[in-house]
């Protein structure tokens, strides 16, 4: 058996069958029904809801109602694409169906009800989610129930719900929120401190170590501040000593750390803490207080000269900060808050302000970090960021469509200009010649041998090629119409994209204006805060000079 001959035959067949492929076939790949929801699951996890919808909604209209799994994914995709009413309807159907998906659908419904300001409905859905969901769903559902009870002022009920939860992130967050409420409403911080202790224990069971560490820092700072206010200075120091210096709350922790030391008459340690806090930008909570604390610390310990120097340094820092705030304000007015602030941080997602260690050292970005502590600010930035992403994606789509159109027009022109022999006249003799070669090789092959099996496969391909070449001319004639149809669709799509882009730009302009107003109002408040700190420092230094002058006069009087 001539192996080389057979390989040549395979190669020739590949060319022939390759030729029998018409451009722009309009039938597209069919994905098995059972794989669509699996593909949608991955697309949703990749943050591509439109792709998920493509998998779930493609193909012919299904004759049967979609399964609960499909409906759940459809609901999630609709939710991510701003179609909350459709999503709600889908989740409601799922929540009445298969138990396997009921918990997750109910949790979504609870969140939607919360967002609509319907706490009673939210509780009902959260209860259903907790009773029918897996552990992960249950913990989130119980957290929502506890939050709803807490917001309604039913703290004991919130505590009982949290008590039923397992250790981990959601229970820790619930106890932290409860502690914040207790700290606000109780004179005695005991209840708040106990809640924080429990929060800390719960947080330690969070398997996500990064998240656990950050939450622990927040709990420690809160507990430190509360202990200080209660007069438990050593306990406060115990909590604050554990706060990491590279955390956003570090200056606040250092300031209270210094206060606790000062309360224990350990001014040397207090000054060290405040000195470290001064190295952070003034935008961070606790930094301005630490600047003032330094002066007061020297004052209290009788180093009046150093106290004066510290106050003068604080005045200089506060005045410099006022200038920085004016500059930032001007930049926002001229370039817009999104460009001047968000773009400056070189990230476009909502968490941009957290993703760089520069945030802890650069004043301008530090103000942003402080600004973004407000949920309203996060929403405002998210709006602009979403619209910007949409605009970029639409511009990309527009470019793709232009390329497609040129390519389709070129293919159509080639098809129309073709004036050679009919393709079937060229291909048929080739196929016949190959068939003849196949017959020769077949006669030489031993029945049952590997070569015979390969030849059987070749025969199948050859038959397929023969069959396809039969209607080749007819299919080729249909190509120009098919290409023209596709070109029309591309042109229509181009117009749709242009209209959507205009809408995006209009809305973006409004969203940016709203963000600018919010950012300028925030900077206005920050300027007032710095101005107040400046006033206080100037008063302190005036008192100090007055004291020094009086002391000098008294000394002179005594000398005389």
């Amino acid at each position: 058996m001539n192996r080389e001959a057979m390989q040549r035959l395979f190669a020739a067949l590949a060319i022939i069958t390759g030729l029998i492929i018409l451009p722009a076939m309009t039938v597209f790949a069919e994905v098995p029904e059972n794989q669509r929801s699996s593909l949608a699951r991955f697309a949703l996890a990749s943050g591509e809801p439109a792709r998920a919808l493509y998998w779930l909604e493609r193909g012919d209209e299904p004759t049967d109602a979609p399964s609960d799994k499909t409906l759940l994914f459809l609901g999630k995709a609709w939710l991510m694409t701003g179609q909350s009413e459709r999503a709600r309807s889908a989740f409601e159907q799922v929540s009445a169906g298969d138990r396997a998906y009921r918990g997750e659908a109910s949790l979504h419904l609870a969140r939607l009800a919360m967002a609509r300001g319907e706490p009673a409905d939210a509780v009902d859905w959260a209860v259903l989610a907790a009773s029918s969901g897996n552990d992960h769903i249950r913990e989130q559902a119980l957290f929502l129930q506890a939050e709803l009870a807490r917001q309604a002022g039913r703290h004991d009920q919130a505590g009982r719900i949290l008590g039923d939860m397992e250790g981990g992130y959601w229970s820790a967050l619930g106890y932290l929120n409860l502690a914040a409420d207790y700290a606000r409403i109780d004179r005695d911080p005991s209840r708040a401190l106990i809640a924080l202790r429990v929060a800390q224990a719960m947080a330690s069971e969070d398997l996500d170590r990064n998240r656990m560490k950050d939450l622990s820092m927040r709990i420690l700072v809160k507990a430190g501040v509360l202990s200080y206010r209660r007069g438990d200075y050593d306990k406060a120091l115990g909590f604050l000593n554990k706060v990491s210096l590279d955390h956003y709350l570090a200056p606040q922790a250092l300031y209270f750390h210094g206060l606790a030391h000062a309360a224990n008459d350990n001014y040397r340690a207090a000054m060290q803490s405040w000195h470290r806090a001064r190295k952070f930008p003034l935008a961070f909570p606790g930094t301005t207080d630490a600047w003032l604390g330094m002066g007061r610390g020297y004052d209290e310990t009788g180093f009046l000269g150093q106290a004066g120097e510290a106050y003068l340094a604080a005045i200089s820092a506060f005045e410099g900060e006022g200038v920085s705030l004016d500059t930032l304000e001007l930049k926002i007015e001229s370039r817009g808050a999104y460009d001047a602030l968000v773009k400056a941080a070189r990230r476009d997602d909502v968490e941009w302000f957290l993703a760089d260690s520069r945030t802890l050292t650069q004043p301008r970005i530090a103000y942003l970090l402080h600004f973004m502590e407000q949920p309203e600010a996060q929403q405002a930035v998210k709006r602009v960021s979403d619209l910007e992403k949409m605009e970029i994606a639409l511009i990309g789509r527009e470019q793709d469509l232009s390329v497609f159109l040129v390519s389709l027009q070129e293919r159509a022109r080639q098809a129309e200009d073709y004036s050679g022999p009919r393709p079937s006249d060229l291909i048929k003799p080739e196929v016949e010649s190959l068939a003849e070669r196949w017959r020769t090789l077949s006669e030489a092959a031993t029945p049952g041998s590997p070569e015979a099996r390969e030849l059987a496969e070749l025969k199948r391909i050859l038959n397929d090629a023969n069959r396809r070449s039969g209607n080749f001319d007819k299919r080729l004639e249909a190509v120009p119409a098919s290409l023209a149809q596709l070109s029309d669709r591309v042109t229509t799509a181009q117009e749709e994209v242009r209209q959507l882009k205009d809408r995006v730009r209009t809305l973006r302009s409004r969203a940016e204006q709203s963000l600018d107003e919010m950012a300028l109002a925030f900077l206005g408040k920050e300027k007032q805060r710095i101005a107040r700190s400046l006033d206080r420092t100037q008063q302190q230094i005036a008192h100090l000079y007055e004291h020094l002058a009086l002391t000098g006069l008294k000394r002179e009087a005594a000398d005389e």
Partner: protein
Amino acid sequence: MSDAYILEARIAVRSAFLAVLVSFVAPANADALDQEIDQLKADVATMNRSLFELEEKILHPADTQFSVYLSLAGSGDFILDSIELSLNDQPAVSYLYTDQERQALEQGGVQRLYLGNLPAGEHQVSATFNGQGSNARYIRNQADFTIRKDQGETQVQLVLEANPQADRPELTLKEWQ
């Protein structure tokens, strides 16, 4: 402790705070701007869906279309980090997974790893996966397959099976009918 670790932690917690806070502060009826943005998002999603279909028709005619899907099977300790796919010794695609994507695959999700065109005939498909096995052991493994592309669409699925008994996960290939 590295900066990256700390920053990741901040992002994770703030993201959760954001999600929680936003859900609490959102007014009963989102303001007009948010409603308009939601409507726009829906319209863009609808348009994207039809554009995906159009793009597939133009770029990947069914006769030459070749797709590779990926899924996970089994319940080993293996954590998939990335995968590289080559067709006929030419790099076709590489993919780095996020935690959410990995989780989706573990829960039965399927990824369309590659969509392209191949002529009829025999082709080599090579897949190399990287990840972390038990005891944080780094694993890199390659699997080679020969496929026959017939006329019409051809869709194959790579299945990465993490068997707790086996030393390392194995890749198998099956064709969608």
